[in-house]
């Protein structure tokens, strides 16, 4: 600190917005209020949305499958929301607020590197297809860029009676001829995908 510092130190201005606490307080008050109005209140109100009639909470197995879906980051490529736009209707009817009543953490997503899965349980009801697709998507969709999920399966030389054995085209099968057996995670995930079904909006429904 030289003489020059002495010149200014006596003249530090701490009035108005030159007081650091004014900046901290003004920022906190304005932003705090906006956070309440734009996040807390809308969040509170929308969290109480009534379920669309006909929707049910997931079963324990489906719920576990949902956890696999979340943990593996499926939502980075698959959305779960159908917009009221013509190009989206291939995936189902437009989504309504009540469809998400049992959906936490939410999985709407803003990515569609793969197709929307809102209604995949109706559009692709085959568990067999889902297992093959999870083992190697290219076994059923030639141009697919979806990752393989081999860790959702076990290779067994001899399968047990209760095992879900997945039969895949020879070129995608293990070279040693082992059986591809779905793990509990895979079975839960497929159960969840099969449960992804939109309920129709009929009379007395949420579309009213």
């Amino acid at each position, binding site marked *: 600190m*030289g003489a*020059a*510092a002495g010149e*200014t*130190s006596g003249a*530090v*201005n701490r009035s108005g917005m*030159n007081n*650091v*606490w004014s*900046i*901290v307080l003004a*920022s*906190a008050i*304005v*932003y705090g209020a*906006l*956070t309440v109005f*734009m*996040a*807390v209140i*809308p*969040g*509170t109100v*929308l*969290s109480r*949305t009534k379920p669309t009639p006909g929707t049910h909470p997931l079963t324990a197995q489906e719920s576990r499958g949902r956890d696999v879906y*979340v*943990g*593996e*980051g499926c939502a*980075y*490529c698959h*959305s779960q929301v159908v917009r009221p*736009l*013509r*190009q989206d209707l291939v995936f189902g009817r437009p*989504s309504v607020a009540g469809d*998400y*009543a049992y*959906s*936490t*953490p*939410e*999985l*709407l997503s803003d*990515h*569609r*590197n*793969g197709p929307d899965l809102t209604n995949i349980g109706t559009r692709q009801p085959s568990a067999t297809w889902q297992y093959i697709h999870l083992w190697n998507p*290219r076994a059923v*969709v030639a*141009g*697919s*860029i*979806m*990752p*393989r*999920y081999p*860790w959702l399966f076990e290779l067994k030389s001899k399968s047990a009676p209760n095992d879900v054995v997945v039969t895949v085209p020879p070129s995608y099968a293990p070279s040693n001829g082992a059986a591809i057996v779905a793990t509990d995670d895979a079975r839960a995930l497929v159960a969840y995908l099969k449960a992804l079904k939109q309920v129709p909006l009929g009379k007395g429904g949420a579309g009213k």
Partner: protein
Amino acid sequence: MRIEPRPHGPFRTRRRVSVSVELLRDNVEPEDIALLSSFTLTATFWLLFATAVGLLLSFKFPYPDWAASPYLSFGRLRAIHTNDTFYGWASIALTGAALYVGSRTSGIPIAGKRLAWLGLIGFNLAAVLGTITLDLGINYGDQEYREWVWWIRLILVAAIALSGAALVKTVAERVERDIYISNWYTIGGFVFTIILSVAALLPQYQFGLGQVAVQGFFMHNAVGMWFTFLALGVTYYALPKLLNRPIYSYALGVLGFWTNLVFYPIIGAHHFEFTPLPWWFQTLAIVFSVGMLVPVWAGSGNFFLTMRGHWETIRRSYALPFIVVGVAYYFLGSTQGTIEAFRSLQSIWHFTNFTIGHSHATMYGFITFIAWGAIYALLPRATGKQPSALATGLHFWLATIGVTAYVLALSVAGTLQGLTWAAGDPFISSVDAADPYWVARAIAGTMMFLAHIIFAYNVFVMTLGPSQESGKWVRQPAKRAAP
């Protein structure tokens, strides 16, 4: 309007020096040098790590069967890429720069150094734990930029609060007469982000669609109230410092601060257009997305008008070109964000890779380039060690061409995806249409990653490298302690 430098203003002492301003060394305490160096070094580690992950991800588009291990799978690594670039790289780099700028403009060394060190440890701890848990498939939900489980995000909030406290303490104890505009932005950024993070952590109002509303708010504010504010604050210091002239307009800076603060929090729902969120809520977000042109044009205009007529200085500098590109991408990327928010365009571009192009235009073209400009501007002044012009030039051109190619490739890819959907083609045709552009993106990503390796080498030279005190440096006359 034009504010003339005050007789004792922070930029006055440089005015009569004829050598390149970058050859001047700040008079900095050794512990402050250690702080800035440590923030920058760990941030650089996270940049390298997170973009190595990003590069791997980009090659998974053309080669989906490659690296098919759960720990290298797309769904797990993607969140690691985004969170580590956000909270490892950009947060640590800009926090270090903000603390240093706070000290320079206050005329005193960084106050509350222990808070700053703890903050640095917290950021790194959170990033390490977040990376491990995400790779094990443990997360809070596929909620962009808040995938880390709650206790890791709590560590992150603590790190932000501790570093912010060090900055506030520094500015509170200043010997300079006024609080420089940089500190408005950076202090604001810390305050907003603490509030935002706490609001995003509380679960009571985050069920189903309620969580969608909070997520729209969070994901946009994490970018706009944190990185934007820190980057603008640092630019308000680095740009006039390097150009050796005052900022064009202090008033535009203040206008930008308040309009950013009021408009930004309202636009989050534009990430969820045409969803079951209330229609008026989406419309409000679109209206204020247009309002965002005010702070964006005020800020970028202010910077460009400060640069006007000084292109020769910029050409000779190795830090300024990064700031020029950063400001240009701030203007372009944010203006693009406004246009993208219109319903007519969202109906095509939403869900497509156009969004990923936009996020790289802003988080990379804007935020990362400003962080680089700040590091090249501040670090050599603190340590007295400069990187070579060749290495810096290579870094600059690889990164600039890389990110531009990246954004263009994904903008085209996204447009094609949206158009094939609108045409009613089978879904797979959108994959086929985007495929060549994904290859282009992987090549662009490779250029960007090479730039990061050169940058890491430069950071090493500027911090741990051998001393360069051999008459090459012009020691600034120690006439005054500040800034």
